[in-house]
């Protein structure tokens, strides 16, 4: 076998020189979320500053560290002192940091989140001790935000492709054994043991075989896969190469949704570099194993996250699922055995092969091993990517890492698993993150979206939102999902418009169980989960909507009347100024009133009132 030691040596020392650069280096988080927060302007400003000041400072664009609420992030490497990660760096701050810290000595501690390498910097704690980072164990995300996603050398310097080389050495059987020992289960949501899935495909008759990476990630509010692909695309490629080697597939596809252009770009660059390195293509390193990878862009259909619909889409047909069996392992892409895994599943594989399955099995619960990346969003202080070992409780994620609800609001529930998942009320916060435990609670790990909701969220409205999403995204092929979900949505719309009737809840439950049982694919199979779980834990809210025609959370427009509580109102006039319908009246410093006829229930006053004087009647 051709050896890559020469490249490894060269890459490692290039990485070392960067880490111990005698010249200051600024790592700017330039993933999609970073750019959305303004990283692009920061980079331009820094470049201008460096040019004007004629200083020798290197700028490196890196992926996303996952601390979305603190975007844009800049990590500063100043020779002689540890790397410091600064948060919410707008262009001015970035110039300030450059001037006062990089060129000066003031570490601007108030903007710093923490140091990322060893060593002390006065006034600045360690980033790992930052509340959002403490509970996290970053295996899948270890390179994200650290390496330059367009430079394969960085990845190789941090043991990139070592797993794949080891697999080539030990052969497919041993590799599969390692994956089995690791207890790795599918991160797409179903949690099916990965080694068993690979074995089905490996044993199935039929040539050629295919491996596919499901990077459709259709759940609203889920962006873990995007960050992995943008920050560390090589891990996905390496994982797929190992999987293909075990299964005996020579062709692989990465099905990325069209809405991730940056991820597609970084992946293509990674593929190009890996191929030129000889780690992709025919007869890799003379091992006799050939593996070619291609990227297929999705056209924005949530249903294409389902494996048979995805396969149909790759084949160029309409993305609509088909009845199974036969399962894709027996007859998938063009009727040939095909193995499909999620992005996060593939990117867990290299570490398992590199460090051995036992090391991976060391973390997590007895039947859910390793870590899980969540995208923590919603009404929580610290939103962003959270990678925690299996077994961490929901409370730890929401309160410790997430910092609890915003604006001193009351925590109500957390929606886990997106449109296919269920909601977890406060009473179940101590539920550990575990495939089976979540299933029992009527929720679902799903791809990892966690949407935190506080008392200002109406659960009926949330159920309606997810159903509306599913009505649009249902492929429309089978009656159960097409008609069932639509009718459930109609019922919820009725309830939210104040036309709820007795028996609606029972009807929703009956329809829900029907759609779950009778739908052709898992989109329909899981569509009722949001409704069933909200009914299970928040039945009272449904009843108030139906009987009292009231929405306590102030969300369902036709069931809401905003009233100003005279004692609490300080007469600051904020609501009067902002009310679009001029329904608020009152003198300065005096309690204000809302004219019910004019009020259009837009909720601006209810949201903005600093003193929570606006109440829902």
């Amino acid at each position: 076998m051709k050896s890559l030691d020469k490249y490894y040596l060269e890459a490692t020392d290039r990485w070392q020189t960067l880490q111990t650069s005698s010249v200051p280096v600024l790592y700017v988080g330039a993933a999609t979320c970073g750019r959305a927060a303004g990283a692009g302007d920061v980079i331009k400003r820094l470049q201008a500053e460096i040019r004007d000041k004629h200083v020798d400072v290197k700028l490196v664009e890196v992926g996303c560290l996952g601390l979305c609420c603190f975007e844009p992030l800049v990590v500063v490497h100043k020779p002689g002192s540890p790397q410091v990660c600064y948060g919410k760096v707008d262009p001015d701050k970035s110039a300030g940091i450059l001037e006062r810290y990089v060129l000066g000595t003031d570490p601007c501690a108030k903007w710093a989140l923490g140091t990322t390498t060893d060593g002390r910097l006065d006034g600045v704690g360690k980033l790992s001790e930052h509340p959002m980072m403490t509970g996290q164990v970053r295996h899948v995300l270890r390179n994200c935000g650290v390496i330059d996603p367009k430079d394969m050398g960085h990845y190789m310097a941090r043991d990139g492709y070592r797993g794949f080389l080891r697999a080539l050495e030990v052969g497919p059987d041993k590799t599969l054994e390692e994956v089995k020992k690791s207890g790795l289960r599918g991160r797409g949501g179903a949690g099916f043991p990965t080694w068993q899935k690979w074995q089905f495909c490996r044993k199935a008759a039929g040539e050629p075989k295919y491996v596919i990476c499901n990077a459709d990630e259709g759940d609203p509010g889920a962006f873990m896969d995007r960050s992995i692909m943008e920050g560390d695309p090589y891990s996905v490629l390496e994982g797929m190469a190992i999987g293909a080697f075990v299964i005996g597939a020579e062709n692989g596809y990465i099905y990325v949704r069209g809405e991730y252009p940056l991820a597609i770009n970084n992946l293509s660059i990674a593929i190009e570099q890996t191929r030129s390195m000889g780690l992709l293509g025919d007869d890799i390193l003379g091992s006799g194993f050939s593996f070619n990878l291609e990227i297929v862009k999705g056209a924005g259909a949530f249903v294409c996250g389902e494996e048979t619909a995805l396969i149909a889409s790759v084949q160029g047909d309409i993305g609509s699922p088909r009845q199974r069996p036969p399962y894709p392992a027996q007859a998938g892409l063009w009727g040939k055995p095909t193995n499909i895994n999620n992005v996060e599943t593939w990117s867990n594989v290299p570490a398992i092969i590199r460090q051995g399955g036992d090391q991976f099995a060391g973390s997590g619960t007895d039947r859910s091993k390793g870590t899980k990346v969540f995208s923590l969003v919603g009404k929580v202080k610290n939103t962003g990517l959270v990678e925690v070992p299996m077994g961490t409780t929901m409370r730890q994620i929401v309160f410790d890492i997430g910092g609890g609800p915003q604006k001193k609001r009351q925590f109500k529930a957390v929606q886990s698993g997106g449109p296919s998942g269920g909601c977890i009320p406060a009473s179940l916060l101590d539920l550990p993150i575990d495939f089976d435990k979540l299933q029992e609670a009527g929720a679902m790990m799903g791809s990892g979206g966690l949407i935190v909701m506080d008392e200002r969220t109406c659960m009926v409205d949330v159920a309606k939102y997810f159903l509306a999403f599913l009505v649009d995204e249902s492929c429309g092929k089978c009656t159960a999902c097409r008609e069932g979900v639509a009718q459930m949505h109609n019922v919820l719309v009725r309830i939210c418009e104040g036309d709820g009737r007795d028996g609606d809840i029972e009807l929703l439950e009956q329809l829900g169980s029907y759609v779950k049982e009778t739908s052709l694919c898992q989109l329909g199979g899981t569509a009722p989960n949001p409704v069933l779980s909200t009914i299970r834990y928040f039945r009272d809210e449904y009843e108030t909507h139906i009987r009292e025609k009231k929405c306590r959370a102030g969300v369902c427009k036709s069931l809401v009347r905003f009233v100003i509580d005279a004692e609490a109102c300080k007469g600051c006039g904020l609501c009067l100024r902002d009310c679009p319908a001029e329904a608020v009246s009152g003198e300065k410093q005096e309690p204000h009133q809302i004219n019910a006829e004019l009020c259009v229930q837009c909720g601006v006053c209810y949201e903005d009132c600093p003193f929570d004087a606006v109440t829902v009647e």
Partner: protein
Amino acid sequence: MIKLTIDGQQVEVEPGRTILDAAKLAGREIPTLCHHPAVPPAGACRICVVEIVAGGRPGLVPSCAYPAQDGMEIQTCSERVLQSRRMTLQLLLARSPGSEVIQEMAAEHGIKEIPFPKQTGESGDDCIMCGLCVRLCQQIVGASAICFDGRGPDRKVSTPYADRSDVCLGCGACAFVCPTGAIDPAEYCPNPIEKIPNEFNCGLDSRTPIHLPFPQAVPNKPLIDRENCIRFKTGGCGACADICPAGAINYDMTDEFVEEDVGAIIVATGYEIMDPSVYEEYGYGRYPDVVTSLEFERMVSASGPSNGELTRLSNGKPPKSIVFLQCIGSRREKNGKPYCSKICCMYTAKHTILYKHKVHDGQAFVFFMDVRAGGKNYDQFVRRVVKEKQATYLRGRVSKVYARGDKLMVRGADTLSGTQIEIAAEMVVLAPALVPSSGIRDLSQKLRVGYDEHGFLLEAHPKLRPVDTNTAGVFLAGACHSPKDIPESVAQAGAAASKALGLICHTRLSREPTIGIVDESSCNGCFECEGVCAYGAIGPRELTDKKGNLLATVAFINEGLCQGCGACAATCRSKSIEVQGYRDDQLFAAINAIHR
């Protein structure tokens, strides 16, 4: 083989068969909507779900698409299955309230009303999106003219950009498989599918391009009507060839002319009935309930368009009163046929009995001139019809049939009571004149058989040789000679057959001796006779002296071919040819004898 239990019953099926196939074997009825044997399954409508109790992933699965697996235990109507089916039907009823198929199925499953608002959308909402038509068009017919448009509840079947399709073959297969009849290919099909009227049932129902000509056809095999068959019109489809288990369909076969040298020909081309719409007073063609006796015969026949159910063509209800009008076009000097069509009186009597079988409380009337019941037991039959009140016989002609409300007023004379009579009828049956089948004139000219002005073929002699014709070897049988009923036709057919056999069973042929003979001494060899001989019976013959040198070339007549017409005799200037029996001297004597 795969063994599984369906509702407790052991069944064995080959691998690859579905649970539905197994259930059929076990005699269990499972409703299907989006399933059709000729189309690959999709499991879209979910009406056929059954419950896997053991031996597979437990839960509800669509039996039409789920492969049977060894050791499976299936419940086809467990409570869980029925609940799911009821909900599916309720949802479908909400989506397509107007569809009878769904209403029927829902009623069968005990669904009274549904908890969902019924969709009131525009027409064509009978489509339950089962996708059969699209799958058929893409995978079987191969035209891919229609596709799914859109996603979710407002997904619909349409052509690309909802334009008229330029690939649709117009085969109508999608309409054929559509479970609710929601698809109307005419909307997008460039060559619209016209309904093909079923000729045998007088166009009262329609038939498909590949069809049995008529129930008792011999051989009883289907044929392909090339004008309407899509394969020949546009080269597409070919579904019949795929489905035919015997592989008997070969599109390359074409009609071919088969030439047979035969000893005898029996012409039995039968009859057609005259189109009574020429007589506007009876309203045929204007009122739907005025029908011909042939149409009536088909309507009351079990293999007819309505499987023997007699209903009015206007409103589909059984006719409570019916009037039979005789001699429509027959026995008429002006603008009609002067002859009696002979069989109408008897079949009308039969029709009154058939009518009473179909409509017990109905009343039949017959307007007649005189009942022609001359056959064996015929008159007794008619007398029984009259005596057992099957029909009221009114001797007289009908002057007019006109509509009033939903009834047909039949105004005629009853000469026995000497009064005008008007009957409110719900159906009027005309007994039109019999005419020879179309094309009889070309055939008879080809066979050189005479025919009268109505087109009936001429027998050699009405009394002495009724089955022969003037052309030797051509015989007549049945209505092509003159109107006659079945007993007479059969008798005449037997006679014709025996005559033909008599002709061809001998080794030598005896014939009239009237053939031409050449007087070689006076023949100039100009061969103008050869030009006029229609049978090519005249050829050259070389006269040589003993030493073999040619003296002259004279005409020679082949006795086998010569028919004795005498054209050559009239053309020969030197009178060197005589026709035996009509020689010049004989005719000369005849002319002289006339003047003695």
